């Protein structure tokens, strides 16, 4: 098999035969094993290893050592394969919520996805989070119910959960032949044939008649399927009435429904036991869209309201998005999705963020940590660039064609901690590591605390930061000492408070004069608002801007404990000026003075990030699950009965969530799991706030004391 676009540098594939897909799933659904099997059946690899492999080789997609050790996928490595004349780029997406930016970035460049579900555990809380993200990016999905060989497997129940829990119009396209240890193959409800996967590694597919014991069940399931998919094709509806159904008509209807996100075809099998994977590949190329069937938009750099719908045409100017950076053994590797045009080696493109010219040195097609050099790549494809200086999320365009792909949703970090290198050598390595991580991951922030000189890293959760600290050690040989995790608090005011402040200074030369009058008031849901109601020119119009600036300069550090102030409204309604002594500087100073004098009267309070925490576990652990939440100042919003499982929805302050994974694991014998997402900022309860403010002040004083000594 000749990989398309590889080796000879010619694009041997038609864009309509390209599929850019993600494989997205809950952490234990067997996603990596499934990817491994796909690569095996498409001749991309020549042997099969397990994720938690005993042979020490590990599955192909988990290229980072850390992932290999933990048996999870953290970075979304990209690979590709060929199946029945189609070129399939596969972005492996991580399965942990703390890494959602990785998932979101991958979703941005995908045209379709395979949602892998475990046939025993079904739709779990993690699947719900991932599914919500896919909905946000309008990614068409097909579902693969994996692990049909496991005890307790029930793909039909999982299909029902897809409908009930995720609201999908999920329809079984297959029925499993035997479950648990009897799982032998699948019945295809389109062809109405049985398929068995034989040979040492399931590579021999045997087509046979449906076993008589399942004939009635299969007929019924086919009727249900036809009912559902005929909604998307009038031709199929007519054919059903006339009794002239063809396989092609059914495929077309399924494809139409899937691409419009109105239908989720459900397939089943067991990747580990080599059952059903080839049929899944058939479904990927049959039902998921090619790049030309998905609408992607770019925004003009000069006129933000001007939208350009990408063309995918190889002859148009280039538009490409860098969606992932990787620091490999040979330097920086930048994964890009090309939306239109053709990129050739030694082309010059412009980076939309820096507006700098970038010369394309080497162009490669990636296969986990191996690569193939190629000469050109065109619209619709996913490839990688070598030695290009850019950050994740940057757009590249042809000179003169100034558009940027829509920016990605980047949430603010909610947790931070200090890192200190253990020795001199670690110091240099740490700097290198941080520079790299910041480019790779927009939700990871590294800065120096101006007061203490410490390096502070911030991110989306405890595990998120843990992974980077591990990577510092392993990949960059930077041993660090970490401080206590700190939560990103905010301050806000709770009542309206008037101000009337005069700034006056006469120390020879020109004086300074400005008087401002008005009030501060709480504006929930806003960061800062400023309104001038000054009449009769008591403050000349030219100084109003300076007034706003004066107040705004105070919100970065509130006077309660020094956290950023949110929800602050300022109304200016009177004041006075002096024809000689008033100036921008004088009014800015007056406003700063007014803020200092009034802030405490507006009863400031401390706000803390609160997380939505969803737990899921066997009913017998309901008590333990509730207790772990309540012990952490959590509010239990509710519980949901789900047969033998119970789901607990709660809100817990982030500051109480440190080490939660361990607590939950030991409280429930590892049988419950949780997901966590930022919900909102909420007031710290009074009794705790006083204590917390005291702690923060004390820590700060100690730090300052240390710096002075």
């Amino acid at each position, binding site marked *: 098999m000749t990989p398309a676009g590889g080796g000879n540098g010619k694009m041997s594939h038609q864009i309509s035969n390209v599929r850019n897909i993600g494989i997205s799933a809950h952490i234990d659904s067997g996603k990596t094993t499934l990817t491994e099997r796909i690569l095996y059946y498409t001749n991309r690899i020549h042997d099969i290893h397990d994720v938690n492999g005993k042979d020490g080789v590990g599955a192909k997609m988990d290229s980072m050592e850390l992932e290999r050790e933990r048996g999870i996928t953290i970075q979304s490595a990209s690979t590709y394969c060929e199946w029945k004349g189609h070129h399939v780029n596969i972005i492996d997406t991580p399965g942990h919520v703390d890494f959602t930016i990785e998932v979101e970035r991958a979703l941005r460049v995908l045209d379709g996805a395979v949602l892998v579900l475990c046939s025993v555990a079904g739709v779990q809380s993690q699947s719900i989070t991932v599914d919500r993200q896919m909905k946000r990016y309008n990614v068409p999905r097909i579902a693969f119910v994996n692990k049909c060989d496991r005890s307790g497997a029930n793909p039909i129940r999982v299909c029902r*959960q897809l409908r009930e829990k995720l609201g999908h119009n999920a329809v079984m396209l297959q029925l499993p032949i035997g479950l648990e240890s009897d799982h032998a193959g699948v019945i295809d409800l389109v062809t109405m044939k049985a398929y068995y996967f034989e040979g040492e590694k399931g590579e021999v597919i045997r087509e046979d008649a449906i076993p008589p014991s399942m004939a009635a069940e299969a007929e019924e399931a086919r009727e249900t399927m036809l009912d559902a998919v005929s909604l998307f094709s009038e031709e199929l509806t007519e054919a059903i009435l006339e009794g002239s159904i063809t396989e092609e008509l059914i495929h077309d209807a399924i494809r139409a429904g899937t691409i419009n996100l109105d239908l989720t075809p459900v397939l089943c099998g067991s990747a580990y036991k080599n059952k059903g994977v080839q049929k899944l590949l058939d479904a990927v190329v049959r039902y998921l869209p090619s790049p030309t069937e998905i609408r992607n938009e770019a925004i003009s750099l000069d006129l933000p309201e001007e939208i350009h719908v990408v063309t995918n045409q190889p002859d148009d100017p280039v538009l490409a998005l860098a969606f992932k950076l990787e620091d490999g053994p040979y330097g920086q590797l930048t994964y890009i999705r090309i939306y239109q045009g053709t990129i050739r080696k030694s082309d010059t493109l412009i980076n939309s963020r820096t507006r700098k010219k970038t010369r394309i040195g080497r162009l490669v097609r990636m296969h986990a940590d191996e690569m193939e050099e190629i000469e050109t790549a065109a619209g619709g494809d996913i490839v990688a660039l070598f030695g290009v200086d850019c950050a994740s999320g940057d757009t590249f365009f042809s000179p003169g064609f100034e558009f940027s792909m829509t920016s990605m949703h980047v949430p603010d970090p909610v947790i931070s901690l200090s890192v200190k290198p253990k020795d001199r050598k670690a110091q240099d390595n740490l700097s290198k590591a941080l520079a790299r991580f910041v480019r790779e991951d927009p939700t990871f922030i590294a800065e120096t605390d101006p007061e203490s000189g410490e390096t502070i890293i911030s991110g989306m959760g405890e595990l998120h930061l843990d992974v980077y600290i591990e990577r510092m050690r392993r990949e960059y040989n930077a041993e660090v000492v970490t401080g206590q995790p700190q939560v990103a608090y905010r301050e806000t005011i709770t009542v309206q408070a008037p101000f009337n402040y005069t700034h006056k200074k006469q120390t020879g030369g020109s004086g300074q004069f400005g008087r401002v009058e008005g009030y501060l008031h709480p504006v929930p849901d806003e960061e800062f608002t400023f309104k001038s109601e000054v009449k009769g020119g008591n403050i000349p119009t030219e100084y109003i801007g300076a007034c706003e600036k004066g107040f705004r300069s105070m919100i970065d550090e509130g006077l309660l404990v020094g956290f950023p102030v949110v929800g602050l409204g300022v109304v200016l309604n009177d004041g006075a000026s002096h024809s000689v002594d008033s100036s921008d500087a004088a009014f800015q100073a007056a406003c700063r003075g007014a803020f200092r004098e009034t802030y405490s009267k507006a009863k400031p309070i401390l706000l803390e990030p609160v997380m939505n925490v969803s737990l899921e576990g066997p009913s017998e652990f309901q*008590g333990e699950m509730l207790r772990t939440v309540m012990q952490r100042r959590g509010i239990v*919003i509710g519980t949901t*009965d789900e*047969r033998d499982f119970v789901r607990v929805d709660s809100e817990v302050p982030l500051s109480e969530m440190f080490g939660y994974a361990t607590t939950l694991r030991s409280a429930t014998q590892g049988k419950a799991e949780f997901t966590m997402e930022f919900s909102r900022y909420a007031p710290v309860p009074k009794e705790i706030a006083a204590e917390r403010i005291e702690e923060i002040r004390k820590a700060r004083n100690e730090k300052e004391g240390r710096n002075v000594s």
Partner: protein
Amino acid sequence: MYRKEVNERSPLRVFERSIHGGLGRGNLGVIISRAGIGKTAFLVDIALDDLMRDRKVLHVAINDSVEQVRRFYDEVFVELAKITGLEEVDEVRLSVERNRHIHSYKDVSFSVDRLVAVARFLKEHAEFAIDALMIDNFPFASATEKEIASIKELAGELDCEVWLTALSRRDMEKGAGGYPDPVAPFDALLSVKIYLESRTGAIRLRLLKDHENENLADLMLDLDPTTLLVKDRQEAS
């Protein structure tokens, strides 16, 4: 207005006076109406009135998810806070959420036995002693007398009030006062029965049963059709 005043001035006090001081602990009350009139909203009003008095409420949702019920409460709460000019909204909301527990049976069939287990569990293991139990969309059509008796028993055991909602249909048999009555077979176990019906510009609340009170003729109130809050008598007249 502070929370206490909101409670004192709550139109629900009028409603309580109408039913002789309220439903009373250990008793079952039913809210009946046709689909879409506002049974759930009225149930949430009663629950919020309890919650704002620091009483603990278990809300059992039979067809809705926890998230849906929570949104319902949020909407009514925001509306209530706006109309009454409630102060310290965030703090009140926090205490409302702490005192409320929503239990959903969205994906599984409801069973009274399971409900009894959940309520007992909350009391014993989660320090959640229920003052009021709200059961929305109770499947009266398929319910047995034994099940209703178990709920009544639970109300006594937990020493709480229990409000249930029941759906009525036009073709149902008419009960007291000529209103369709889906709960007639269980009358002996129910202390209060309320019927909600749509009137121009208002939702009218009629008492079909009020403990042992025989004279029900005058007992009706009008509710605001958007908030389902009871309108004051003067305002209504």
